[in-house]
């Protein structure tokens, strides 16, 4: 599904993460790591949001050779989303939905599922962190992605929304979507069928056994 070769990501000459060879097959993958371990940088790199050295391929699409197809099939939900304060959730959702070629019915269903309707037309500057998180989750599920990356998807949202996120992940997973999830809290993804567990530490990504998680 996702092949990563010789990936190196540095900020101003300082190496943050290095992945010599990693193949992620279809399924739900959990990336653990302390704050500042490089999880977000790794995820943002996979989402095509940061420059890097190396190669990343999603199914048959290379991130550099087929940048549009690649980005059409990989979505990303920010850990701590922050949007221009004058835009509404509706503005953001419609903008991303058009780019990701999402149907109107999918947009409506995500808005309903994540409980965005009450603040859909309010500027994001008035949102709480939970409302921002719900908006970013809706954006991450838009279109027909093959891979959805969710960075700390369960922080700042209430328990009812957590259950809905589990439901969405299970639904999309049943349709063949691969998930890359991150959380520094051990217990949070027990409700999901995790296929592989990785630890992001010392600028490396290592697979660990589920019992170690």
């Amino acid at each position, binding site marked *: 599904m996702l092949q990563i070769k010789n990936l190196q990501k540095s900020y101003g000459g300082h190496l943050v993460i290095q992945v010599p060879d990693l193949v992620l097959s279809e399924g739900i993958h959990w990336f653990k790591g302390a704050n500042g371990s490089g999880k977000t940088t790794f995820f943002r790199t996979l989402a*095509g949001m940061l420059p890097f050295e190396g190669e990343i391929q999603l199914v048959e699409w290379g991130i550099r050779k087929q940048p549009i197809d690649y*980005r059409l099939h990989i979505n990303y939900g920010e850990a701590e989303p922050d949007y221009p*304060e004058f835009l509404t959730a509706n503005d953001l959702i419609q903008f*991303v939905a058009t780019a990701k070629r999402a149907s109107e019915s999918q947009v409506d269903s995500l808005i309903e599922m994540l409980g965005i309707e009450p603040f859909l037309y309010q500027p994001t500057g008035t949102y709480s962190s939970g409302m921002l998180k719900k908006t970013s989750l809706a954006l991450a599920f838009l279109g027909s992605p093959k891979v959805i990356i969710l960075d700390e998807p369960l922080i700042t949202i209430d328990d009812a929304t957590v259950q809905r996120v589990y439901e969405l992940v299970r639904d999309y997973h049943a349709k063949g979507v691969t998930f890359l999830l991150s959380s520094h809290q051990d217990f949070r993804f027990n409700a999901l069928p995790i296929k592989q567990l990785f630890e992001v530490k010392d600028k490396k990504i290592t697979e660990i056994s589920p019992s170690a998680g």
Partner: protein
Amino acid sequence: MIKQQVMIPVLNILRKTLVVEYYRLNTGFLFLVLMFAFGILRPEDHIALSAYVFASPFLLGLVFAFFGLYHLKTIFFVRQRLLWDSHDFLFQLVLIPKWQRWLALLYVQAMLWLPVVLYAAFVGYYGWKIGQQNAVIATYSYILLIPFTAVASYEYRLFRPNPDTKLSAFSGYLNRRFTKPYWSYFILYLFKDNPVLLFLTKGFTCFIVLGVCKIYPTDHYDERLLSLGALTIGMVHSVLLLHLYEFEHLQLPLLRNLPLSLRQRSIQYLQLFALLILPETLFLVRYLPKGVSWVYAIQWWGFILGLLWLIFGRFLQRHYVMDTLLRQGFYAFFVGFFLIMFRVPTALLALTTLLLGIYLFHRFYYQSEYIVHKEGLKIRPES
């Protein structure tokens, strides 16, 4: 003695958090104003100009309005800083006696207001010498009294932290009725978070168009004068383009995850740039001097557009901060100046800058990254 001991640390904190930061962030803006004010006009031109201004209440009013805009810019900066979480400790100022607090805030405003004071002192001296005492007294009174309005405004904010954001029924209706198009995002950002920068930039650039168009028939200038105006307008937009670069990286990082081709993205930027220079375009259309062809006007427009592409492309190629921008802008202006003076055709300049800018955009769009920590540059809304 004790009071003095209280005041010195307070003034030090205010100087470091507000005054130094203001000048650090506005180095580019002040440098550009300085470059165009004293690079193009000689000191004797300023003295002659001040003689006209002091003699005309209307022109003096206009100058007061310009100073007022700068005053608003400084107020906007300080009030925004007071909304930052990192600057919450400044609200402790309410604990010190009122007169000391007012003195401290007056110190801040006086430091931010210093460029205007120095300029007014310079031209006022000559105004006094030519016998325009009343106008000079009016100017000095204005310059000395207006900082108190800023102090009152800061005092208001200190006693009313965390302002509520009120949504009007009209904006609610607009949000329901329309979805904002992508090309409007940056323009809305400027109106919302940087209105003074936007109005100062546009006021200045439209004044340049008006100036070169009006001066054109009165002298034996050729089209190079208009081209120099275009170069100046393009360079003045550097600060706005730096904001665009920061805005997209910090507030819309999701843009780079969207499956849009570089061609689609180029079209979006083209729409945005054309919209940004719409006021200058309208001014040129309105005041185009007789004898200047429409073909040249199109080349002139293309040259500004090309400069915008080129500057934005350079931001993508290399992460700039204001200090670097300043140096590069200075060199670029002089290169452009000599090319125009050596009669390099405007069409060629337009084509070269456009092609170079679009090349840089295609080459570096996905390579570009913002490496400064975002919290340090976060813009908070003004109430």
